[in-house]
Each structure stands twice: as C-alpha cells, then as structure tokens.
C-alpha cells in the first residue's frame, strides 16, 4: 500500500525525522517498507519562470540561449538543451544554490563559453515521474516567481507491505495511530472515528438486509443537488500521490475517505436506482456489469447490493456500471457498510475481481467507523460538489462486535519472551499506548478492552506479541542451550546420500537438479515404470502444460538436461540427480520414493593432449559406476520389455529384490535430442543402496598362503547371458574357489574365427586355502570338478 508522508503529516508531526528513520520505525513495527519514492524538491530556489527569448547558441547546435523572467525584475540568462518549449511558456527554474534530487547543486557557470545562471527543469529532474523528454511546461496562469514547492508539495511515498492481520493499518489514520503509539507523538485533531453528529434513523422501508451474517450493518445517505466535476488540486494530488487516478469529485472523495480512514464507500447515482436497497445473495446465474466494464455471472454465494429490480453492486468489491456516478449525476446514495471478510474474499477469488475496497473488507474493516466515514465523505461532498444532505443517516442492522476483553498473563509473557528486565508495568504501558484499555489487573493477570479496529487481538498470546513487537528483539538476550539429538533414519539416509554424491563426483559426474513437475509428453521418458501414465500423479491445476504431472522417474528431467547441454554444444554428458519420484498406487494413495538417477553419454574423459579423442561411453561404463556405489552389494540384470524410449531396458536386481533399472535411450529418441553419441541411463532406489550399507564393515584376517589361478575359455551361444556362468560359479560350494573374473569376451559377426551365433568367454578362477599352501593336484581336481559341472549347468563347451 502506498502511503504519503505529507498526508500522514496531517495527523501527526513527523518533521525532524529523516526518511531513513521513518523507514526504520515502520520496519521495526512489523511494517515492511518495500519502496521509498521521494517526490518534488523542498527548496526556496526553485521558482516559476517565463521564457522571454530563445536564440541559437553560437557554439553548440543543440543548445539554445534563453532569457527567463524569474520574478526578480531582471531577465536571467540560461543555456538550455530542451526543445519542447516555445517562447512565453512557463517552466520550473532552479536558481543557483538550488539542490536537486541526487544532491545536484545548481551553480552559475558557462556552457560552451556562454554564461548560464540556472537551470530550467524537467519533471524527472525535480523528482516527479520519469518524464525526461523536455522541460516541465506549467500552467500559463501561474505567477512568475512563485515558489515551485508551493505548487507541487514535496512528498515521500512509502510503499508498505501490511501483514494480513493488520487491516487497521490500511489507511493514513490507521498508520498515524500506530506511529503515534510507537513514538509517543500526539495525534493532531484526529476525528473520533466512532462518533457522528448526524442522527441515525433505521431505514425500515428502503434498506433491507437479507443476509445479516454477510452484511450485518449497512448505512445510506442521500445527497441532492450536487455538481459532478473534476476534483480540486489538493484532492487530485492526494489521490495521485498514493497511485490512484482521479475520476470525478464524488468518486474521488469516496476513495479519499477510504485511504484516509480505511473504510471503503460507494456512491450510487440515486436517479438510476429503482426503489430501495436490498443487501442479498445473488441468484445463481444472475448477470452483472461492473464498473470495470466486464460482465460477471454471479453465484448464490456472492453478496450483492440490489435495488428492486437488479444488482447494482457486488458488495464490498465493485459497483455497477449503470448505477455509477457520472457527469450528469445530481443525486447520490452514499453507501457505508460492513461486509464480512469471508464473503468478500470468496467472491473476489471466484470472480478474480479485486479492488482497493475488497482488499480492505477481506482483511476486516472496523465496523465502528462506518458512520464516521460516511459523515466525513458527506461533509467533503457538500464542500466540493455542493448540494444538500438529508438530515439523517439511514441504517439497517447494527455494527458487529468483533473484539472482546483479552487477558494478559504475566507468566506466559515471560516464558515466551525471555526478557529478564521486562517489568509488567512496561508491558501494560505498551498496551495502553496502542489504545488498549485496562479493565482489571491482579498480581499475575490483567484484562484489556480492545479497540474496535484491532480485530487481530483475540487471545492472550496476541497481547504478548504486541509487547514483543514494541519492545523489539534487541532486548531479548541470545541464549544457546545445547540439546542432544538422537539421529534416526532420516539422519542416516542423509549421510548416505552425501556419501553417494561424493563417490559419483569422484567419478567425474555432475550433480543436477530438475523440477519434480513434468509434462504429459515427458512421462514416456520415465525409467522403471512400464505404464508411466497409469502411475503418474496429475496436478489438478497445473500452471502450464509443461508441468502437468509429478514425475514418476528422474530420467525425464535428466534427458531434458542432456538436451539443453547438447544444444549448448556439449556432448560429454555425465549427470546424476537424487530426489523424489511419485507413484500413484492402485488403492488411490501415492508413494514417494527416493531415487538416484544417472546419465552418461559421449566421451568418457575430457579431451586432452594425451587423448585427443576419448572413446564414447558405453553401457559398461554406466554399469561400472553403479557397481562402485557405496552400499550396493552384488547385482544381477533382468531384461524387461523395450519400448520407444528405452533399449537394453533392464531391471537391476539382487535376487528377487528390484534395486533399479538401466537402459540405453532408443536411438530414435536420442536423435530427437540431437545426441551424437548413445545415451545411457539408470535409476536406483536409495532404499536399496541403504540396505547394503547396514552396520560397520567387519575385518577379515589377511590370507597367509598364496593363491593360484587357473584360466578357462569356453564357447557359448551368442545370446547366453554371461550372468548365467557367473551365477553357476557363485552358487558353487567349493571351499577352495575364492573368486572368479571374466577377462575376455570374443565374438565374430563374420563367422570366420568363430561361428556368428557363438561367442567365447574366458574366466580366471582363483583358488586358495586359509590353512595351507595348495598342492597342484588338489587344485587340478577342484578345477576339473568345477568345469565338468559348468558344462552340465550351462550350455557351454570348454575349450581345451
């Protein structure tokens, strides 16, 4: 909300406080200052001048030499670069000694060897708007020599963020009240907003409240014989200073009162009203054309002000186009009322229609100033637009009681605030300054009457907050108490995740972070899910079609990352990401799963003088990375169905447990990403990695006796998974066999050295005993036994 310092100063004397001091004062009262705009210049050296003569500068094409009447009696010579004036125009003239915004002092001097004794100013140079296109041309009627600051008063505009609980600060009176409480400055002649001199009379026949919960209190005042026209300058300036556009005197006055007191008002053209006012809920489907020119279809939850035939305003939000005040209006009905916040909020939200009025009603207006605001507006209308007001204020209903007594408990206050030197008298003093009224006090507790505008003060803790806010945190001592924390699963998985990150970074991978919301199209890039569209959780109200679902896999994000990097000319892609995926379960609930995703593609190493063209990564590079992950035990691969995105699509398993998935991106999909090298991806469940890393590693005695290796080569069908051979070896109960290692794989597609449907596998078997050095004979026996069994278990032929 924009607040004018000059306006605020009509209520309390803030002179002598710098803008920075005021900004701090507001900030530490909990009112965030989002912007400060200093307007105009408070200077006795800027006057209205008239240009008497303008001739071309002898030494500069773009400059003119002007003679200006500054009211002193003798013309002043000023060199000027602007072109937008004509001789006879009146403009602001800064005389030598004037200081313009930006601490720019005007001095007598020469411009290109011609004397220049001052400066004619643009609006921007005077801190008024951004118009720098030329001189600010003034009203020709203005007397020459008049001080510019009397013409346009200097002002400071604060842009404040008022927190939603403080609706009482949404006006200049409200802020003045708060600042007075915080500074101890007296308020200047502030009208008592709850009192009114006009007698009120129930409007029995022409005011009807049909929805008293939504509108418990409504007042109307008829003013006749007014003349609608432009507002006087002071009023226009007030409104413009807080960012409002002047419309006409009546509308401007209602807006002025709203920014003055915080009470929104509305003026209807009484001639356009058909009979008395009814405040009622709209009927479903009812149409309404608002002042913004749009037609709205109303619902039963919306509250309207209606005449006898149609709605004429959406209560608290916006008036109607037909019944608004226009140039031809002579008689108005001035509305001042209280509307319940929830009703205004609901309607505003439903229609997407928001106004300065609804902003205030939504947060909660002060029902006790409904009459006062009406009276202030009426007084201003009579003064500015003329006319006569009816003797009485008509009303229906009664102002609701929104506040009641609240207790301040001393013990609670101390426990929460922890300020040892805070005495209860000081706390009471603060509450009193804020306008609260002490009703009773005992040793440990006092009760307080709450001003009608402080609807946020409902509970004891709310009073404690007020004390804390005013005392400030400066006085609170900093306390540091060590408390031991017992770590649990969340701590362990965090540590493990960091360990995995470091392991991957050591293998040259870059950690990525992608959005958890992805598009419907990206779902098909999901790894580890055969039916991603079935298990993806859709967002009901996505922001765009790029973010329609929660991801079921991290791979779509990593593929987008790959595509971005390829576009940037980077073909060496090594990424990993850790984070959640979301899966819809058949029973309607969902599961959130922590995963690790990997993507490698392109040269395995950076190019360098030792290898100018490193080979491209293949699937075994990726498998190698996976096998090196801390916490992962032995893995097996189970092929699953390929699809349009994934080839070599496989589950990574340990026995029956699925640990993750690995695949190559289908070349067709890779081409869409402009990839020049095959792309390999994998995802692992972090829970799977966690299982392998339980407990502390246990030490094993180092072998005392030498080991012996025996190699074996075998021929196998080309499509026999090597994993079957490995599984045979690992399933053996041969105590002497310590380990096996595949060290050669050979196939020949041409069929020359080996039939094309065959391949050759070579393994190295290591034998050792913990008790003795093995005899050649016992190794030979074991080896022969193992090979004989191998040929029976797996369709291979041992090559002798």
């Amino acid at each position, binding site marked *: 909300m924009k607040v004018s310092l000059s306006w605020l100063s009509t209520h309390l004397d803030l002179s002598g406080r710098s803008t920075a001091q005021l900004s701090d004062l507001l900030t530490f009262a*909990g009112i*965030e200052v989002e912007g400060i705009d200093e307007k105009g210049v408070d200077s006795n050296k800027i006057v209205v001048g008239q240009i008497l003569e303008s001739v071309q500068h002898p030494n500069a094409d773009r400059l003119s030499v002007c003679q200006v009447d500054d009211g002193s009696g003798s013309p002043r010579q000023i060199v000027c670069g602007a072109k937008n004036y004509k001789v006879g125009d009146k403009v602001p003239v800064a005389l030598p000694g004037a200081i313009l915004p930006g601490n720019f002092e005007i001095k007598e001097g020469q411009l290109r060897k011609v004397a220049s004794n001052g400066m004619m100013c643009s609006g921007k140079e005077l801190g008024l708007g951004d118009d720098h296109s030329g001189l600010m041309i003034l009203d020709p009627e203005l007397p020459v020599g008049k001080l510019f600051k009397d013409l346009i008063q200097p002002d400071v505009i604060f842009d404040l963020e008022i*927190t939603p609980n403080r609706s009482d600060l949404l006006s200049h009176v409200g802020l003045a009240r708060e600042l007075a409480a915080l500074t101890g400055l007296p308020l200047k002649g502030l009208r008592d907003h709850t009192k009114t001199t006009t007698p009120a009379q129930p409007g029995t026949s022409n005011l009807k409240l049909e929805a008293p919960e939504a509108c418990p209190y409504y007042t109307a005042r008829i003013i006749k014989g007014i003349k609608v026209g432009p507002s006087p300058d002071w009023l226009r300036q007030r409104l413009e200073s807080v960012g409002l556009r002047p419309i006409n005197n009546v509308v401007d006055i209602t807006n002025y009162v709203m920014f003055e007191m915080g009470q929104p008002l509305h003026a209807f053209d009484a001639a356009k009203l058909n009979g008395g006012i009814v405040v009622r809920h709209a009927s479903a489907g009812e149409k309404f054309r608002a002042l913004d020119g749009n037609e709205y279809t109303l619902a039963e939850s919306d509250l309207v002000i209606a005449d006898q035939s149609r709605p004429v305003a959406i209560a608290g939000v916006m008036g109607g186009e037909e019944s608004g005040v226009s140039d031809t209006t002579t008689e108005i009905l001035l509305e001042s009322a209280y509307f319940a*916040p*929830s009703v205004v*909020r609901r309607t505003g939200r439903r229609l997407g229609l928001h106004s300065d009025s609804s902003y205030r009603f939504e947060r909660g207006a002060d029902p006790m100033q409904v009459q006062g605001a009406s009276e202030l507006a009426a007084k201003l209308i009579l003064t500015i637009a003329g006319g006569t007001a009816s003797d009485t204020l008509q009303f229906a209903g009664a102002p609701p009681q929104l506040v009641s007594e609240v207790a301040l408990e001393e013990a609670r206050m101390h*426990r*929460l605030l*922890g300020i040892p030197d805070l005495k209860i008298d000081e706390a009471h003093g603060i509450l009193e300054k804020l306008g609260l009224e002490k009703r009773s006090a005992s040793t440990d507790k006092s009760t307080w009457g709450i001003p009608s505008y402080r609807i946020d003060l409902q509970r004891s*803790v*709310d009073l404690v*907050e007020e004390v*804390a*806010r005013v005392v400030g*945190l400066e006085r*609170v*001592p*900093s*306390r*540091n108490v*060590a408390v*031991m*924390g*017992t*770590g649990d699963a*969340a701590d362990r998985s*965090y540590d493990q995740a960091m360990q995995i*990150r470091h392991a*991957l*970074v050591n*293998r*040259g991978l*870059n*950690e*990525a*972070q992608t*959005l*958890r*919301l992805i598009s419907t199209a990206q779902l098909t890039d999901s790894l580890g899910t055969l039916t991603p569209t079935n298990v993806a959780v859709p*967002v*009901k109200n*996505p*922001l765009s079609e790029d*973010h329609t679902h929660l991801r079921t896999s991290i791979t779509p994000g990593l593929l987008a*990352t790959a595509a*971005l*990097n390829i576009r*940037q000319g*980077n073909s060496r*892609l*090594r*990424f990993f990401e850790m984070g*959640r995926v*979301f899966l819809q379960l058949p029973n*309607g609930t969902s599961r*959130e799963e922590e995963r690790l995703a990997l993507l490698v593609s392109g040269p395995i190493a*950076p190019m*360098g*003088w*030792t290898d100018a063209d490193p080979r491209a990564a293949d699937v075994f590079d990726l498998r190698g990375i996976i096998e090196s992950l801390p916490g992962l035990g032995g893995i097996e691969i189970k092929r699953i169905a390929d699809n349009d995105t994934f080839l070599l699509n496989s589950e990574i398993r340990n026995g029956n447990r699925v640990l993750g998935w690995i695949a190559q991106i289908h070349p067709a999909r890779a081409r869409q990403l402009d990839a020049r090298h095959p792309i390999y991806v994998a995802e692992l469940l972090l829970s799977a990695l966690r299982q392998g890393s339980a407990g502390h590693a246990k030490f094993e005695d180092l072998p005392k006796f030498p080991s012996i290796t025996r190699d074996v080569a075998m021929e196998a069908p080309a499509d026999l998974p090597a994993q079957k051979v490995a599984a045979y070896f690992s399933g053996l109960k041969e105590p002497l066999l310590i380990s096996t290692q595949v060290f050669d794989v050979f196939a020949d597609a041409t069929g020359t050295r080996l039939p094309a449907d065959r391949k050759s596998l070579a393994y190295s078997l290591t034998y050792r005993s913990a008790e003795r050095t093995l005899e050649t004979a016992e190794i030979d026996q074991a080896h022969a036994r193992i090979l004989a069994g191998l040929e029976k278990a797996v369709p291979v032929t041992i090559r002798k």
Partner: protein
Amino acid sequence: MLTELSELKTEALTALDSLTDETSLENFRVAYLGKKGKLTAISAGMRDVSPDLKKEVGAKLNEVREAITSGLATRQEALQSAKDASAVQGIDITLPGRPGLGVGSIHPLTTIRDLAIRTLRRMGFVLADGPEIETEWHCFDALNTPTDHPARNERDTFYLNDGRLLRTHTSTVQIRTMETVKDLPVRIIAPGAAYRRDEIDATHLSVFNQLEGLYVAQDVSLADLKGTLEFFFREIFGPQTVVRFRPHFFPFTEPSFEIDVKLEAKGKEARWIEIAGCGMVDPAVFAAVSKTRGDNLFDPENVTGFAFGLGLDRLAMILHGITDIRHLIENDTRFLTQFS
C-alpha cells in the same frame, strides 16, 4: 704368449671404445671372455708354458682378464647411466596432466543445504522428513491458517484431483513430527522441496527448496530463537554478520519475525537481505497437534517452541552471487562445473 696377451689387451680395449649398445657389449663379452672367447683360447695355452714362466704368464693373464672385465663393466655402467638419463628425455613436465574421468561437481544447492545441515547438527538438531503430497489439514489447518486464507487458493497452490495438495512449505514437517514423536524435546530440521503456483522467472520457481526448523520443549523462549538463529547465520555468513529480527506475521507463529542479514554486494553499500522467517509456535498449532494425538504431550499450556524456515535456493543465490534462479534447475554443465 706374453706378447700375444699384450696385443689382445690392446685390441680388446680398443674394440670396447667403439661399442655403444648392449648387444655389441654382449657380443664383445662372448668374443673375449666367453667359453670359446679369445682370452679363453689363449689361457688354454697355459698348459704348454714352461714352469719358470708360468708365474709371470699367469699374472699377465690375470691382468689382461681384469683389464678387459673392468673395461667391459665400466662401459656397461656408462651405457646404463646414459640410458637412465635418457629415460626422462623429451618429457615436457610443463604440459597439463591427464584429466582421468574429469572432475565432477556437487550442485550448489546441495552444498549450501549441507552447510546449513552440518551447522544445525552441531547445535543438536536432527533431521526429519515428511511427504510432499500433503493433506490440506497438515499444510494449512494444523498450521492455524484460516479456511478462506488466500494461500489456499487454487491460484497459489497446486492441488491433486483427490483434494490433497503439494505442500506449499516444509512447515508441514513440524506437524508430521509432532504427530509421531514419543517425547520432548523436539529439535528437528527438515530440508525439502515445496511447491507454489508461481510462473517460473528469474526469481521464482514453482518447485523450490526450504529448510524448516522446530524446537519444542517446556521452556523455549524468544531468547532461544534469537541465540540459535544468530549463531546459525554467523556460521553461514561469517562471524561479523549483523542479523536483525523484524516483527512480521505468519499464521503458525506468534510472535513472528522475519530475519535480515546485512550483506555487502560488490562495490555497493551493505544492504539488509531478507533471509528467513521465524517465530514462537502459535498455541493453536499445539492445540491442533494435541487433538490428533489425543494426549497432552503438546499441551499449549505446558510447552513452548520456536520454528523457522528459510529458502535454500535463495541462500545459494546470495552466497554464490547467482543472478537467475533458473540456473539452478537447467543444469548447464558450464554452470555446474563452476562449483566443482
């Protein structure tokens, strides 16, 4: 024979001088000292030497053998040391090293999160966690947010078709934790993703990262809040950091504050930068938790606590001087490798 030996010595030592490789040295050894070598052949003639000359000839034979053997050894050594010297010849150690698999990088967000977590763990906080798909109750009701509060708006919050939502803050973990713990104190931090229906631009992401903190015990006061967070931010930004607490409003804390730290940007005057929100847990939050628990562990009359939340993306941007938040999710390698 003496003459013969003298001539052989001269011949051998002369021949040795011209030999420059191992093979020729070996050939030389065979030719002179081998079983069928010249010296061996001459020494076979010792049998025929008259006894009175035997001593002199024997001495000469030894002298010649010694001369040839040591000449050969010297030569071999010279050759080996020339070879050793040439082992590093041509190596230009000024060339850059082999890159191996290259150096990877931890995402800057992870680094900052880890820094925050390590710091808070030193202060006795433990990690806690909660779902990102949440109920409206955990995200709003339990956190004392009015039913018609604008934050619940479909314009601001992502909903699922079943009425659940994507949590708009990690404060939900406060509730999740208090619902399940067995004892006090609760002293937790919860890093995690949160969602808001913001158009993505230079300063907004629809999915962003927060860190939540909660400490609940019998007598937690503003003094604890202040001490904890001042310490924390000085650990993060440096011991000289000035921290200020501005009164603010959040539905789930009262009193509430926003925390600013004074930071200097390059060549600019130091500015207050908003960095976190905090406050004393609102009794209404304890009441909501107590209602679902059905016990008195969090009786609002008995316990107090403080909570805080900070935006990790923002913290990373401030600490690293990142000007556009989108860099954090685009993963351009040129960006990521700046943090290796």
